[in-house]
């Protein structure tokens, strides 16, 4: 039974982590593509159109990866989490079915037209198809976060005698206080990834003295979008999201921040340290007094509940993992703001394209938003443990009763092998597109 749950969780964690490497780029990138295409319509400068089409090719590749790795996500609710699906399907099935009907059809129909229909449709319609792809991908994100928010903070439901969750208020699903902060936070984080990728590839071109015209365009656009989004992802949306955790999941907040004991006179903010679960303390701690109380309640001496105040059986299952996930996300987010602010200043002074070390930094920063996004999601998901539906349904009660651990391990290994192959192919193909550069792109 223990093994079974472990493999079910591993398989979901592995497949969702791999899957979300792709949508996190495509959602943000679709916004930048719409921007490039719009600039082209406004200015008629050809390079904007080439830029739009170049990124569309990268988008298409990522989108295809997102689709093929996304279908297993929908199936796994039923295959591995049957009991959870049976009990909550009347509610989360609602938002998931809406995602299929509203966004997948939209995206898949118009992506083909955007990729192959430029000559058939003319420029304005071509812009419109690009915009619809953007709309579809952001709608998809919205409905997924709506589902996620219900699991974090269930609303609009009642529980029947047989344990089934039944919807009694449809609009409550979309007025969930958890939903909007998380959605904006997540979408901005996706724009961060896309901006850093666009700027990073631009820096790569500039440092290589190849496609320099596009290198400049990509760096400039990426830095502007990157600066705005990396600030907004922290303040106010990250702040709102954290305040939701304080309010609805205080034990999770204590674990995230590494607060083992409630402190009189206000809590410190931990910058670095390793949780020692045996002795219930942080090793090698570097912390600043009273800041956490201030950030949370705008009062220096506000009390923040430590883990000692909660029942141990409701502790998040993996406290160190949760703590690291959160701290890596926040730490990287801070670095992103600093780098983009620096690059922004250089851009404003018209020196950015010649400041080599900043370009190097931008290029090497490319993978890190992926790490920040992933660890941010780990914070949300590990933070919800040991619950599937917060405070109502435990993870151990949600797995499929008849699927043995051997069968799950078999499919987990299969997914690992297949996704390894997919990942390698993806890197080869994306490298090929980048090497060819924007102007040779013919669509």
């Amino acid at each position, binding site marked *: 039974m223990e093994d079974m749950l472990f493999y079910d969780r591993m398989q979901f964690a592995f497949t969702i982590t791999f899957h979300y490497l792709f949508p996190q780029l495509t959602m943000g990138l679709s916004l930048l593509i719409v921007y490039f295409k719009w600039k082209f319509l406004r200015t008629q400068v050809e390079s904007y159109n080439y830029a739009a089409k170049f990124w569309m090719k990268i988008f298409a590749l990522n989108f295809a990866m997102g689709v093929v790795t996304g279908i297993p996500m929908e199936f796994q609710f*039923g295959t591995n989490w049957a009991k959870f699906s049976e009990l909550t399907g*009347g509610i989360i099935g609602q938002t998931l079915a809406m995602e299929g009907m509203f966004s*997948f059809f939209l995206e898949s129909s118009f992506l*083909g037209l955007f990729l192959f229909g430029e000559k058939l449709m003319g420029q304005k319609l071509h812009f419109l198809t690009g915009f619809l792809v953007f709309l579809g991908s952001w709608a998809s994100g919205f409905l997924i976060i709506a589902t996620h928010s219900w699991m974090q903070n269930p609303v609009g439901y009642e529980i029947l005698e047989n344990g089934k969750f039944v919807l009694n208020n449809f609009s409550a699903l979309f007025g969930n206080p958890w939903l909007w902060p998380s959605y904006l936070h997540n979408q901005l984080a996706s724009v961060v990834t896309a901006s850093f990728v666009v700027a990073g590839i631009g820096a790569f071109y500039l440092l290589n003295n190849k496609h320099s015209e596009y290198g400049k365009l990509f760096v400039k656009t990426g830095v502007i979008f990157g600066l705005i989004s990396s600030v907004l992802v922290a303040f106010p949306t990250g702040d709102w999201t954290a305040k939701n955790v304080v309010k609805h999941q205080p034990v999770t907040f204590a674990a995230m921040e590494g607060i083992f004991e409630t402190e009189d006179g206000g809590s410190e903010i931990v910058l670095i340290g390793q949780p020692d679960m045996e002795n219930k303390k942080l090793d090698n701690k570097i912390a600043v007094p009273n800041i956490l109380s201030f950030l949370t309640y705008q009062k220096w001496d506000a009390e923040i509940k430590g883990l000692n105040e909660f029942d141990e059986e409701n502790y998040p299952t993996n406290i160190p993992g949760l703590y690291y996930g959160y701290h890596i996300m926040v730490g990287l987010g801070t670095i992103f703001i600093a780098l983009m602010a620096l690059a922004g200043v250089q851009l404003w002074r018209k020196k950015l394209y010649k400041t080599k070390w900043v370009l190097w930094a931008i290029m090497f920063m490319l993978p890190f938003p992926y790490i920040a996004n992933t660890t941010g999601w780990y914070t949300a998901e590990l933070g919800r443990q040991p619950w599937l539906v917060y405070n109502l349904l435990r993870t151990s009660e949600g797995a499929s009763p008849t699927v043995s651990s051997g069968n799950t391990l078999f499919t987990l290994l299969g997914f690992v092998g297949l996704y390894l192959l997919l990942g390698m192919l993806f890197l080869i193909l994306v490298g090929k597109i980048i090497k060819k550069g924007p102007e040779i792109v013919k669509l």
Partner: protein
Amino acid sequence: MELFWYVVLMGMLAMYVILDGYDFGAGIIHLFLAKTEKDKKAITNAIGPFWDANEVWLIAAGGVLFFAFPTLYASSFSGFYLPLIMILWLLIFRAIGLELRGQYHNAMWQSIWDKAFGIASLLLALFFGVALGNVVRGVNLGMVENGVSAHEAHYFFLPLWNPTFSPMAEHLGIIDWFTLLLGVISVLALTIHGANWIIYKTNSGLNQKLKGLIFKLNFVLLALVVVSLLVWHVIDPKPFRNFIETPWLWIFPLITFIGLFGLFNVKRWKKDGYGFLFSSLFLVGGFASTAASIFPNVLPSTNDVNPSLTIYNVAAHEYGLSVGMNWFFIALFLVAVYMVVQYRIFKGKMDDVGYGEH
């Protein structure tokens, strides 16, 4: 309300069978008949801009199943665990096969992805037929052993096969001779369907050959359909009871046979779209007849202890189902608009589209 969502779900699955069905068929023909680069191009052009949107019907149908019939979704997806995960893997291979072959102009690279696309299509066509067979045959709900349920009444698990490959065995498997028969019928029907699509959407040199193939395969298909009807009583002693009680249901078998017999005229038609129309009739009619024969069951029980799953005992609660109707009609209208736009822009023959040349 349950009935409404049942019709919606069946309608969406039927759309999936028709639309992605031609992609599978095209893949099978690609695997066995397309020898030259020109033929291969013609086939991938014919399905290129469509297959992805077609696959969405499966995902969307899965979503509606989850939302409207959560117990059925939970029971069948966990019970048919292994074949479902394998279907996912095959869908991945089908997709990357189609998308990757044009990325490098290298014979070895292309032949790898050609095979991936073709073999995955063939196995998918087979698996979906087998899946239908499993649903009509039923399963040991609750995993009853000696009159005692080992699990809750609506859960089960099936291995891929049992040693006897018999649909009447005590311990059932996914693949037995009955489900395999339906799998082979599915492969044949979808091959014919895909051939019709290629004829409809291209001017390829294969078209004449394909017409001959459809004509021949149609005899085999007819024979197997007759055989399957003769052996159907093995899994269901009274397969016609619903049709006798509700005579208008005969329209579904009628449509099936109009489609099947119509296809024998394949060589005579001047317009290329007729074949596709008739193979679609066969698929929809066959699918609907099968669903109608077990209605209101959606997953029959093979034991006497636990009742069959019906649309009434697996459905979500009333409020959710009725509120869902509001957004569903809006979404359906939008989907219809997208399809009209998509099929109008890519209307006619597809030979010049140049799909997959990145």
